[in-house]
């Protein structure tokens, strides 16, 4: 892991970021399907294409390597897409 990534403790210089990870288009997502099938029973109509992914929040002093971090660990690029959203400073 790059040492620039603060772990656990508040860091004044860190930038908050949010990584969204979802199954790639075309890959069967049984979790999304199960959620979608449950909706009509709860009275929610007209909701489709439900996909369930993961959300990782982190703080980074240097966000330039977040893509690399996603490729190597947070997502499996063969089956998942990821999106990095930088938020306001911590």
């Amino acid at each position: 892991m790059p040492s620039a990534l603060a772990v656990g403790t508040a860091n004044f210089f860190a930038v908050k970021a949010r990584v969204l990870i979802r199954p790639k288009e075309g890959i069967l997502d049984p979790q999304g399907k199960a959620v979608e099938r449950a909706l009509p029973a709860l009275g929610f109509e007209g909701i489709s294409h439900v996909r369930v992914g993961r959300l990782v929040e982190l703080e980074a002093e240097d966000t330039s390597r977040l893509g690399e971090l996603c490729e190597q660990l947070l997502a499996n690029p063969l089956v998942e897409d990821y999106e990095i959203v930088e938020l306001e400073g911590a």
Partner: protein
Amino acid sequence: MPVRFGVLQFPGSCDERDALAACRRVGEARLVWHEETDLGDIDVVVVPGGFSYGDYLRAGAIARFAPAMEAVARFAAEGGPVLGICNGFQVLCEAGLLPGALLPNEGLRFVCRQVELEVVSTDTPFTAELERGRRLSVPVKHMSGRYFAPEPLLDELEERGQVALRYAPGHNPNGSVRDIAGVRNRDGNVLGLMPHPEHAVDELFGSADGLGLFASAAATLGAAHALA
């Protein structure tokens, strides 16, 4: 000289003892703790099943960074035989030692049952002594065992004979593409499969078919030793 197996042990592994016992029926074996990096005394590596590092993030995602896995990657690059079972298969895919990925089961349920497999490729030390088309009765027990690879990659794998084991018709328990139960790497020295051959090594377990994979590796490596 007996063939010596090394069975990896991560925090969260749970099938390493059965794997060790299976290996000891055909050779010598010891556990390899996840922090170990010296595989100098090992002829065959087994990456066993379980829930390495709690399967946090994705099954196998953290384990691939273990020091022992870096040693296994070097071992495999030098042609050393490596068998990944269940979580071990997931780890080998995450580590890039095998193609493809294991996704959550199509039915979203943990599956635990006996399945029939068909031997497709005998070009690995673990299947060399088996016949193509032979049926093996072996249990599966997993939550994320749906083998997946993009279509063009699947075609390549089939062409190169890298699909080593398939679920017999009607036995695919998880929605794996093309009924794939196990794949090998290009060179054939690394094999991964979701079913558990180490749980089927004695008729008392209901089947001894799984022993064939360990015996095959011992025979293949033993023959190589004799020549050396």
